[in-house]
C-alpha cells in the first residue's frame, strides 16, 4: 500500500508558471520531503536501460509538514434551501441501479445526525421511502414495495398541514409495451409534529454530513434522477406525474422545478421555478443520459432535450480530489522544456508527481517536439481491470501481477476510476480526471503509456537531440499553432484518445508540411472530449465498435461536454489510416514479436530509413515490452480505410501468439481462425508516405516499438531506423510526392470486406 500520494493542479506548465502540489501522507509521521527531478527514463526494471533522473536544484526541495487528506468520492447535486412551506410536495422520477444495496438518498434535506429535514430515498430494504425529523425524533414512511432496478419510478412525499397528513407515493412507469405496472403504492400517516424541510440545503443523490469536512456526503444513490420538483401544497397522487411533466401548470404552487436537461455540458442545475434556486453538481455525474421520455427517436441530446432530462449519479464518481495545497512549485524562468516529476518521500515510501514543462513564451524552439499523450494518460488514470474485469487475464495471456499501486487502488476506491472501468452499479465510466493521484502515470511503474513513453525521451537524450515537450492540452487549446514551430513531431507509444480539436490540429500541421513520427500503436482511435467547465477531465463515450471494456447504452453516444457523437474515429469518418497510414488492427499482451522488411523497404524513397542496416530482413526481435518491437497493440495499413495510395509499407510484423486477436470492428461476423497464429491481419505495418506540402509521416504501428529503442545501449536496429527517420525529418529539404504511386496499400485479408 502507498503511504504517500500527491498530485498537481496542472499537467503541463511553462517556465515562470506555478504548480500547486497536493500531498496526503497516509501513515504516521511528521514531515515529508519533496525533491524535483527531470525525468529521462522511468523504467527501473533490471532488464531495462535503467532508471534515469536528473536532480533539479530548487528552493521547494525541502521538508514539509505531513498530514492526511481525505478524498470524497460520490456525485450529487447541491441545491439551495427552500422557503418555509406549510404544506408541500417533493416529487421526483428515479431510475435506481442498485436499490438492493439499501439506504440511499434521492431528493431532500434530511440530515440523520441532526434528526432534521425531509428526504425521499431508498430504505434499508430497497423500498421507496421518505425520512423526516423535527430535530428530536426521526420518522420514516416506506412504500412497502421494492423499487425495481433500472426502471423509472415516481416517488413523492406530500404534507398537508391542515390535515396533519404525510403521504408517500411510489408509482412505477410503464417500461415496455407489455408492461402493466402495479397500481401506485400509497402510504400515509397522521403526524402530530409537522415534518420540516428545514432551513437546510437540498441534495440530489446524497445526504449531507454536518460538521467537519464540507465536502463529505453520505448515503450516495446509484442511478438516474429526473425532474425533481417542489410544490407548495399537498398534491394528490393522480396529480403527481402531470406536475412532473408540466411544472408551470402548478401556477402559484410551483416552488422549484429543476430542469436536468438544461446546461448539460456544465455543472449547473437550472431551476425553472419562481425562486431561481439553481444548484450545482458535485463530482461530475453523467449527464446526456436518456430520461423517462426517451423513445429512440432521437440519439443526440441537443435534438430532444426533454428526452435527456436525467442525470446518472454514482457513488464512486470523482472529479477533483480537492486536497489543499502543501506546496507551490514555481518553475524557474530558465527551466528547459522536458518531462519532470516531484518526488515525495515519506515513511519509507515515495510517490512521483509528474508534469510536463513546455517552452516559455517567446523561447527559441527546438526543431522537434515530443507530443505527450496526456489525454490518453487521463483516460487510463487509475484503472481497476485486474480486480474488476473477468476477461483481463485471458486477454493478457499471463497470470495477473499485482503491484503495490494496484493493491492501493483496489483498497482505496475513493481515488476514482478510469474510463476502462465500470462504476459500482455496472455502468460504464465516461469521465476520468487528473485532479487526483494517478497511480499508473508514474515513473517506476508498469511499462504502459506515461512510463513506456519515457523510452522516447531516453532515446532523444542519448542522441543529444535538442527537443521540446508539448502535450495534448496545448494541441487541444491551440490546434496546429501548437505544432507550427516544429519541423518534426514525435508521439509516444499509444496516443489513443483524440479530441476533435487535437485531430484537426495534427491534420492541419501535417497539411502545412509537418513531419510526424508516430512511434506507437492504436493511436488516434477514440474521440475524446475536454471541457472548459471541467479542466483536467476527459470524456469518452464507448459507442458502437471498438475494443471496449463497456459499451455506451443506446441513446448515450453523444458527449455531454460537447454534444459531439462519440466513438471510434474510424466510425466517425476519420480512420487513423487517413492521418498516419495505419490504424488499430489487433492486440495481445503476452509477448511481442518482430518486423520483417517488405518490398516497400527497397523503394529508393525509403532508402534513408534503412541506411546502415544492410540486408537484415528482420527488425526488432528484441525489446523492453514483451521482448520484441512489434507487440501489445498493432496497427495495419488499409487502402479502404484511407492509407494513402502512395504510402510504402516498409515492414510488417509476424509470428504473433494465440493471445493476439483482431479488434472487433475488423470483424463483421465472427468466424474461427482469428488469432495471431492464424489470421493474416493480426500484424503491425510500418508505413512511410510523403505529403503534398513537403512533409511526411512515418508510423511504426506498434506499442512495443519505443520500448525497444534502448536495447543494447541503443545500439540496435530499432534505434538506428528511428534515428535515421528523425535525421531526415529534421533536414530542410522538402519531401517530394512520388511521380507514380508506389505499391498499393494492402486490402484486408478478411473475406467479408
Amino acid at each position, binding site marked *: 500500500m502507498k503511504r504517500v500520494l500527491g498530485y498537481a493542479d496542472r499537467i503541463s506548465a511553462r517556465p515562470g508558471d506555478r504548480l500547486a502540489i497536493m500531498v496526503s501522507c497516509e501513515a504516521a509521521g511528521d514531515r515529508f520531503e519533496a525533491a524535483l527531478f527531470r525525468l529521462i527514463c522511468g523504467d527501473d*526494471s533490471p532488464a531495462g536501460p535503467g532508471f534515469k533522473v536528473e536532480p533539479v536544484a530548487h528552493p521547494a526541495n525541502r521538508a514539509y509538514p505531513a498530514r492526511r487528506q481525505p478524498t470524497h468520492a460520490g456525485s450529487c447535486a447541491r441545491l439551495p434551501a427552500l422557503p418555509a412551506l406549510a404544506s408541500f410536495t417533493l416529487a421526483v422520477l428515479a431510475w435506481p441501479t442498485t436499490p438492493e444495496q439499501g439506504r440511499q438518498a434521492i431528493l431532500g434535506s434530511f440530515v440523520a445526525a441532526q434528526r432534521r429535514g425531509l428526504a425521499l430515498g431508498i430504505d434499508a430494504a430497497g423500498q421507496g421511502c421518505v425520512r423526516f425529523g423535527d430535530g428530536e425524533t426521526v420518522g420514516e414512511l416506506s412504500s412497502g414495495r421494492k423499487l425495481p432496478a433500472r426502471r423509472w419510478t415516481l416517488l413523492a412525499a406530500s404534507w398537508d398541514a391542515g390535515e396533519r397528513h404525510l403521504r408517500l407515493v411510489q408509482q412505477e412507469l410503464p417500461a415496455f409495451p407489455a408492461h402493466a405496472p402495479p397500481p401506485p403504492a400509497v402510504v400515509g400517516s397522521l403526524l402530530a409534529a409537522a415534518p420540516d424541510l428545514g432551513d437546510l440545503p437540498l441534495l440530489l443523490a446524497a445526504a449531507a454530513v454536518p460538521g467537519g469536512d464540507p465536502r463529505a456526503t453520505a448515503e450516495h444513490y446509484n442511478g438516474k434522477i429526473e425532474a425533481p420538483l417542489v410544490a407548495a401544497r399537498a398534491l394528490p397522487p393522480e396529480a403527481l406525474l402531470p406536475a412532473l411533466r408540466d411544472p408551470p401548470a402548478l401556477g402559484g404552487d410551483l416552488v422549484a422545478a429543476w430542469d436536468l436537461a438544461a446546461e448539460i455540458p456544465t455543472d449547473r442545475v437550472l431551476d425553472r421555478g419562481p425562486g431561481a434556486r439553481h444548484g450545482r453538481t458535485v463530482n461530475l455525474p453523467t449527464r446526456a443520459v436518456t430520461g423517462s421520455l426517451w423513445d429512440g427517436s432521437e440519439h443526440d441530446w441537443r435534438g430532444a432535450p426533454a428526452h435527456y432530462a436525467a442525470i446518472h449519479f454514482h457513488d464512486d464518481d470523482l472529479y477533483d480530489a480537492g486536497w489543499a495545497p502543501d506546496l507551490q512549485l514555481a518553475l524557474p524562468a530558465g527551466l528547459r522544456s522536458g518531462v519532470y516529476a516531484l518526488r515525495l518521500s515519506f515513511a519509507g515510501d515515495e510517490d512521483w508527481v509528474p508534469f510536463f514543462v513546455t517552452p516559455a513564451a517567446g523561447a527559441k524552439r527546438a526543431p522537434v517536439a515530443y507530443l505527450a499523450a496526456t489525454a490518453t494518460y487521463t483516460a487510463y488514470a487509475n484503472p*481497476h481491470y485486474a480486480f*474488476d474485469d473477468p476477461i483481463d487475464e*485471458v486477454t493478457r495471456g499471463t*497470470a*495477473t501481477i*499485482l503491484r503495490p499501486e494496484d493493491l492501493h487502488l483496489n483498497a482505496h476506491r475513493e481515488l476514482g476510476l478510469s474510463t476502462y472501468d465500470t462504476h459500482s452499479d455496472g455502468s460504464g465510466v465516461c469521465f476520468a480526471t487528473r485532479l487526483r493521484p494517478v497511480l499508473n502515470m508514474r515513473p517506476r511503474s508498469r511499462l504502459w503509456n506515461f512510463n513506456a513513453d519515457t523510452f522516447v525521451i531516453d532515446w532523444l537524450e542519448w542522441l543529444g537531440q535538442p527537443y521540446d515537450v508539448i502535450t495534448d492540452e496545448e494541441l487541444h487549446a491551440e490546434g496546429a499553432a501548437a505544432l507550427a514551430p516544429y519541423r518534426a513531431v514525435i508521439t509516444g507509444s499509444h496516443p489513443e484518445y483524440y479530441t476533435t480539436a487535437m485531430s484537426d490540429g495534427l491534420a492541419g500541421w501535417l497539411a502545412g508540411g509537418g513531419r510526424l513520427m508516430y512511434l506507437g500503436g492504436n493511436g488516434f482511435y477514440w474521440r475524446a472530449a475536454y471541457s472548459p467547465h471541467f479542466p483536467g477531465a476527459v470524456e469518452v463515450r464507448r459507442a458502437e465498435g471498438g475494443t471496449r471494456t463497456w459499451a455506451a447504452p443506446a441513446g448515450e453516444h453523444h458527449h455531454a461536454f460537447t454534444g459531439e457523437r462519440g466513438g471510434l474515429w474510424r466510425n466517425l469518418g476519420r480512420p487513423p489510416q487517413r492521418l498516419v497510414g495505419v490504424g488499430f488492427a489487433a492486440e495481445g499482451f503476452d509477448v511481442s514479436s518482430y518486423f520483417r522488411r517488405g518490398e516497400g523497404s527497397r523503394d529508393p524513397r525509403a532508402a534513408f530509413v534503412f541506411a546502415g542496416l544492410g540486408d537484415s530482413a528482420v527488425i526488432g526481435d528484441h525489446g523492453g515490452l514483451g521482448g520484441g518491437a512489434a507487440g501489445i497493440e498493432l496497427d495495419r495499413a488499409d487502402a479502404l480505410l484511407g492509407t494513402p495510395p502512395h504510402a510504402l509499407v516498409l515492414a510488417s510484423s509476424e509470428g504473433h501468439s494465440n493471445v493476439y486477436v483482431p479488434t472487433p470492428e475488423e470483424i463483421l461476423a465472427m468466424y474461427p481462425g482469428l488469432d*495471431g497464429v492464424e489470421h493474416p491481419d493480426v500484424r503491425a505495418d510500418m508505413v512511410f508516405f510523403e505529403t503534398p506540402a513537403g512533409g511526411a509521416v512515418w508510423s511504426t504501428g506498434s506499442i512495443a516499438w519505443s520500448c525497444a529503442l534502448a536495447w543494447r545501449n541503443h545500439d540496435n536496429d530499432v534505434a538506428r531506423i528511428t534515428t535515421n527517420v528523425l535525421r531526415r525529418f529534421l533536414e530542410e529539404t522538402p519531401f517530394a510526392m512520388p511521380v507514380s504511386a508506389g505499391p498499393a496499400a494492402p486490402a484486408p485479408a478478411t473475406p467479408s470486406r
Partner: protein
Amino acid sequence: MYEIDPERLDLAREFRARPHGVHSAELQRVLNRMRLQPLAGRYALVVVEPYRRWMLARLSGRRGVPPTLFPERQFDDIAEAEWAIFRLRWELLTGRALELPE
C-alpha cells in the same frame, strides 16, 4: 464447454517449457479455460520485490476487498509462478493432481 483431459500431460509439458508466446491450439484451449475462472478466488501474483519476487494470492472478486495472500508460496522466477498456478488450476479443473514424471 471444453474439459481438460488429465491424461494430456504433453500439454502441461508444453506449457512448462514455454509459458508465454505461441502455443499449440490444444494448450491454448486449456489456458483459456483456466484463465476464465471466476474473479472470486482467481489465482494471481502480488509483487513482493519488484521484478524479483512474487507471492501467490487469490482475488476476492469483490471491489475493495483485498486479495488473500499466501506468504509461504513465493517465487523468484515468474515462469515458476506461472507453473504453480497452472498446476493448481489443473487440479481444480480435472480433479487430479498434476505431476510430471521426470
